[in-house]
């Protein structure tokens, strides 16, 4: 069985009158990987995968062909015994495989893999894009196997959702929360990052850009391999704060940025639960911020208990503390992990806001936001982000954040900057 550990990085000392406690809690799992046998896929019915492929007219022949290759690569990674299904989506959604007499899902085997491959080869580009209908069908497929705890989907699209209203997409996404996890990929430069990010974020998955159709196969293979390695299905982060305290936010800050605050499900008046999705052998960092009524100097208080809970049982716990002190040398220090992730969160925000302003034609706002991003990336030595920013802006002075919007910056470069903005670099202890 998997082992979870939780460790906390924080400066617990608050100055006189100080109220806000920030901490990074790192949760690490070992023995959770499905590949090592201990949590392995011995039961054929314990995991289910659905692949959602965009077959709208905009995909074109080349696009659908590449998507088919990608889906086949993903099939190669699905472990035998896993239940699976292939869905093609345009203005509506259809199950491509299994065939209707076989039900909505079939266990993977050499035989079914072959049948699925042939079914994929018959896909043709046609019609519009209504991702809400694809997600709804995926949910209905998963609902046929209520005993399966690990449910994962891959969604591929190349265009803007236009066959339905944003409200109906939103409603479809809401109905899928908790029903399955979904990693999303966009191909080309005609899809909207914020739209697809909204789906991935709500469904505890990742979002990324695939620049060219030829790169899809490798990406699908990697995504499916990652999903297959996750052996721990249902888990949640539980955060307790004391009576009278205010939980300011709970964010996942590594490997990607995700504000979990709005996903709180109350356990009791002092404790909330936040779904984490499935775990492989990995480490995730959470930023917890709590506001406490100030206590007198010398007093100590527990600011938060952060637990990882499996099926309702806490398996790891970290304690976030507060101690009021008049010693400036203690209270003025900012924990390096808290500082680094706070900086990365701000970087992500200004990049997204800057790109949105640019798209809206607000060049002044865009210049100022992206200038701040350049400055932050420079200050934190984030070379990867600096490189990406350079494709969108001309940097006059990174130190002061003085930039000019680059003329003729490619849409793909802007989109890749956008999707990369929420990927954080791990802070080392």
């Amino acid at each position, binding site marked *: 069985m998997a082992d979870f550990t939780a460790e906390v990085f924080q400066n617990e000392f608050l100055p006189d009158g100080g109220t806000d406690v920030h901490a990074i809690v790192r949760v690490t799992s070992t023995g959770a990987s499905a590949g090592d046998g201990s949590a392995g896929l011995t039961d054929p019915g314990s995991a289910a995968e659905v692949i959602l492929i965009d077959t709208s007219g905009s995909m074109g022949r080349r696009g659908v062909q590449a998507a088919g290759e990608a889906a086949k690569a993903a099939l190669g990674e699905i472990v035998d015994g896993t239940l699976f299904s292939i869905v093609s989506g345009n203005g509506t959604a259809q199950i491509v495989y299994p065939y209707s007499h076989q039900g909505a899902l079939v266990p993977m085997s050499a035989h079914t893999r072959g049948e699925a491959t042939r079914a994929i080869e018959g896909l043709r580009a046609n019609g519009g894009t209504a991702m809400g209908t694809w997600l709804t069908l995926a949910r209905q497929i998963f609902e046929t196997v209520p005993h399966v705890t690990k449910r994962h989907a891959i969604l591929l699209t190349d265009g803007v959702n236009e066959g339905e209203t944003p409200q109906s997409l939103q409603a479809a996404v809401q109905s899928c929360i908790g029903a399955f996890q979904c990693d999303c990929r966009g191909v080309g430069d005609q899809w909207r990052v914020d739209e697809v990010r909204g789906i991935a974020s709500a469904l505890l998955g990742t979002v990324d850009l695939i620049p060219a159709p030829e790169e899809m196969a490798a990406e699908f293979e990697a995504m499916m391999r990652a999903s297959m390695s996750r052996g721990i299905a249902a888990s949640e982060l539980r955060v307790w704060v004391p009576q009278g305290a205010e939980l300011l936010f709970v964010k996942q800050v590594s490997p990607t940025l995700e504000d979990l605050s709005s996903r709180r499900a109350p356990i009791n008046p002092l404790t909330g639960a936040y779904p984490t999705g499935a775990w492989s052998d990995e480490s995730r960092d959470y930023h917890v911020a709590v506001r406490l009524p100030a206590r007198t100097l010398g007093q100590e208080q527990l600011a938060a208990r952060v637990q990882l809970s499996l*099926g309702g049982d806490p398996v790891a716990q970290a304690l976030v503390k507060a101690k009021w002190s008049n010693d400036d040398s203690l209270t003025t220090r900012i924990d390096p992990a808290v500082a680094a992730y706070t900086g990365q969160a701000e970087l992500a925000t200004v990049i997204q806001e800057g790109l949105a302003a640019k798209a809206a034609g607000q060049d002044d706002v865009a210049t100022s936001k992206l200038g701040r991003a350049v400055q932050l990336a420079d200050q934190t030595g984030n070379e990867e982000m600096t490189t990406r920013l350079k494709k969108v802006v001309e940097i006059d002075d990174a130190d002061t954040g003085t930039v000019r919007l680059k003329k003729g910056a490619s849409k793909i470069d802007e989109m890749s900057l956008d999707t990369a903005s929420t990927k954080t670099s791990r802070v080392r202890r």
Partner: protein
Amino acid sequence: MTDSPTTGSPQPAGTASTVQAASAADAGALHCPTCGTAHPAGASFCEACGADLSAPTAGAPLPQASEAGTVVGSATPQTAPAGEESPLDVGWTGAVPSAAVAPAAAADDLTCRACGQGRIVDGYCDHCGTPPPDPRNHFVETPTSWVGGVCDIGRRHARNEDAMALSAAEAPGSRAVLVVCDGVSMATDSHIASLAAAKAARSVLDQPFPKGVGTRDAWAAGAGRALTAAVTRANEAVAGSVVEDVPNPPSCTFAAAVVEDDVIVAGNVGDSRVYWLPDAAAEPAVQLGRDDSFAQEQMAAGVPRIQAENGPHAHSITRWLGRDAPDDLTPHLTTVDATAGWLMVCSDGLWNYCSEAEELRTLLHEATAKLDGAATPTTVAEALVDFANEQGGRDNITVALARLAGRGSRTTTEAPAAAAPEEGIPSDG
């Protein structure tokens, strides 16, 4: 995936918990002893009311299972409902003597003293997050009915660097030792050093003094020599409380009084004080000895007390115990023949708010009157500590008192045969 929990998918929380509750009831697994809510076996605390469920069961999932678990392991699960313990019982009443109620008393120890509602589950309260009080931060000694004292952290300091050590024989006025040491707050580990000093001094002063020719003056001379020896031993204890040469070695003050057959001999180094506060208004209230402080030097030079004790360096002391102590550590010695009255040894945490002996006597009489029949040395000391805290509690506060009935009418004599340290020449060489 066989190890995956089956009830813990994040979404259907309502139904899942109903199922859990029902199955728990079927198995008779666990009901909260306080509110009766059913829980699955292995739950560590009640999610409805926060009561500790780990005590009556084996195999609690968290390592922080309460210590009471070992005590009440053989008791029935209905023992000692937490809700029935009085939240008002927060005093230092010590162990309940009856063996029959010992398990209940042990369970009561886990009730949070700060809020009275939660339980200490992992070193902190599960309701308000407060840890159990550090006994070093507030302690009371009541060696006998006529001697008692309180040592308190105050309101502003992070640590209690004051220390107190008392001892007394049962017969009123027969024999008592009161020692107070105030650790210097800028130094390393002064809270350890001051307590070591106070205890070392008490152990010296607890020894019977040579009676000499049996006169009162001979005893007083012996007491003076013992106080000087106690300072030496206390000084060694302070120096010995740190292993190696630290940059900022711990240091502390010293104030002590020995009573034998209603004769008081007092001695001090630094700015902790001994006061004699007789009941009779005709008899003056006095500080015995004098401070080794910058303020005292200024007063000697003619600056009024109010001004000197509130000046910029008022709290700088000119003599102290510790590795970097000055060579001459002879205490200022005073002998008093007690009438009916109060002997007080205190730190500057009290006298900062009431320095003049006459005012202090008034304050003490008011406190005694307010306590009415409940006035004992300890309760009066508590009241004076409360007074200092109400004034702001800027420093640690220690008040030790002996209630003396007096045996004669001999008047106070300042520094008699024993010593004349004011001139820097100890009488006993």
